[in-house]
């Protein structure tokens, strides 16, 4: 496992007292505060319904029913739909059936153009394609790909586009063993380019890659583990007693 605490820099994104809801009554996120530093990998773990996906949706600008005291990105106040913020973050969703009539190569070109990265390093893309064992599928329409291969399309795009903030919602779901191992390497190695925030149910994915782990419970951070505290047994213990009074 590679930890990169020595690379960690100043604050990338600071969010204070974020609350979000879907139906106006029950809050899915409740006064959640979090700071993401530059060049770190942060994990979100929690039971189903803890608010992990909702948090990523808010950061992706897809949910407008939320309130926050403060959201600061690179030292400046930010809205999650601001174009400057959008240009510096990319999200891989747990399930994604978008752009079904593009091939991988077309989607990558489209996303690269959207992020104004027309000079994508072919060597990096080829290495990602090889690492995820995706060579035979680059010219297949996304609708004809299996769930796991479709996931690889968005993961490869994310690591190729290299935004400052990478949001991954359950990135391991649907991947085979070899691709999962490769994904762990990519997440851990991403510190060189930016920050990764990812949610997962798989403890191994968290313990192998993260500098910091937040345990979410009912929309708030129940506990945080850092550095050497990140230990599967300790996190398992916290999760076991979630929702217990």
């Amino acid at each position, binding site marked *: 496992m590679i930890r990169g605490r020595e690379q960690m820099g100043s604050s990338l994104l600071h969010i204070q007292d974020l609350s979000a809801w879907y139906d106006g009554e029950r809050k899915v996120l409740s006064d959640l505060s979090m700071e993401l530093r530059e060049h770190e990998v942060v994990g979100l773990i929690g039971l189903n319904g803890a608010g992990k996906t909702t948090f990523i949706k808010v950061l992706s600008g*897809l949910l407008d029913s939320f309130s926050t005291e403060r959201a600061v990105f690179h030292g400046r106040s930010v809205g999650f739909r601001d*174009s400057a913020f959008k240009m510096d973050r990319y*999200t891989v969703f747990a399930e994604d059936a*978008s752009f079904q*009539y593009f091939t991988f190569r077309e*989607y990558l070109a489209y996303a690269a153009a*959207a992020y104004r990265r027309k000079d994508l390093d072919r060597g990096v893309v080829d290495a990602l394609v090889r690492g995820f064992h995706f060579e035979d599928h680059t*010219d297949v329409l996304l609708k*004809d790909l299996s769930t796991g291969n479709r996931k690889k399309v968005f993961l490869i795009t994310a690591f190729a586009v290299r935004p400052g903030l990478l949001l991954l919602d359950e990135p391991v779901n649907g991947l085979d063993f070899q691709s999962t191992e490769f994904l762990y390497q990519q997440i851990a190695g991403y510190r060189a380019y930016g920050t990764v925030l990812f949610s997962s149910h798989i403890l191994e994915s968290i313990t192998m890659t993260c500098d910091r782990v937040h345990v979410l419970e009912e929309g708030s951070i129940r506990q945080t583990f850092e550095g050497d505290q990140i230990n599967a047994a300790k996190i398992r213990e916290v999760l076991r007693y979630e929702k217990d009074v």
Partner: protein
Amino acid sequence: MRRMFKIFTKKLFGVRYEGLKKALVIDLIVFWGLHTAGYRVAVSPSIVYLMASTFSAGVVWRALASEDNAADLRNLFMLPFAERTFVFSYVSAMGAYTLLTKTAGLLAVVFAVSAWSGGADGFRLVCAVICAVNAVLVTACAFTARKRRGICMLWGGTVIAAVFWLWDRAVFVPIILASILLAVLILSRTNAYAFYRRESGKVRHTGNGGRVSIGRYLLRYLASHKNYMMNTVVLWGVACVLPVFFRQIYAQDPAQAGGLSVLPVGFAILSVNTPVGILLSCDPALERAVRFLPGQGKAFCVPYTLFIFLCNMSADLIFLGSFGLQLGGVTALSVLLAAAFSLFGAVGSVLMEWFFPIRGWKIENDLWHHPRKYVVPAAMLLLAGVCTV
């Protein structure tokens, strides 16, 4: 059967049947509004029966073939079920959805404006409903009998022939009832899995070197949905025959001949190309992607507008060609007017999709008949009125 029927109807109408209540209230308001307006037209009963049949058949086919429906069936097939109960519950629910939320609206409009004598209305309504029920059942049979499409087409053709030539004979209702009985008999022996459309499994490779174009994406999208393509082709057909109706107007009011007055009305009618105007609403994953990727206002919406413009313009040019052949008077100004209306329709459709996407729909059919689709054509009709003045 009742429990299974409820499972399907709750999916189609909503948990508290709110979709059904809303549709019936709207039908009632439309009927009352049009009826009290006092506008009446002479409509042949055979046309009403034909409309009820073809419209219901089209709606139920789309409902049976929709992708979200296939996913629901996949989940239900996991559970043990009684074959016949499943088939009849499923077809009854689809039929109820089609007749009560879609065909009822059509009949409300037709019966509100038809100039029939009071006594004939009840009988014609019963006949129209019987025709619609028959269309639903025959379509369900045709959907499951993929290897016997020829026989099904012959069956449908016989029904249409009966509607055209025997609608005023005593034998008409017994023929339709016999068709219903035959459909029920066939469905009682139908395998439930025949309603499930498997994915093709065909893997399509394309070798364009990763050059990206939203236009190509949209063309592939259209080509992959045969019913969308069919809708566009039908619009081209409407574009061909529309001048025939305008010729009748000219015959009644020769003062309008040779002018541009009715052309914008034609352009407005031809802008109702529903499937290309609901791309984001019917594909929530694409909408999410377009909203979270940066710069999509330009990167996605501009090519999308251009695509709808070309679809509208193709129909408008066919209309102008047909208009010129039948009535003459098509000039360069007419073509410019067509381009302006096509562009207006395209921009309006994309703005509606961007700012007011349709959400909370139960099945794709709901999108095809959502009132929002008439907003842009209605605005274009208003514009047509302004142009005429």
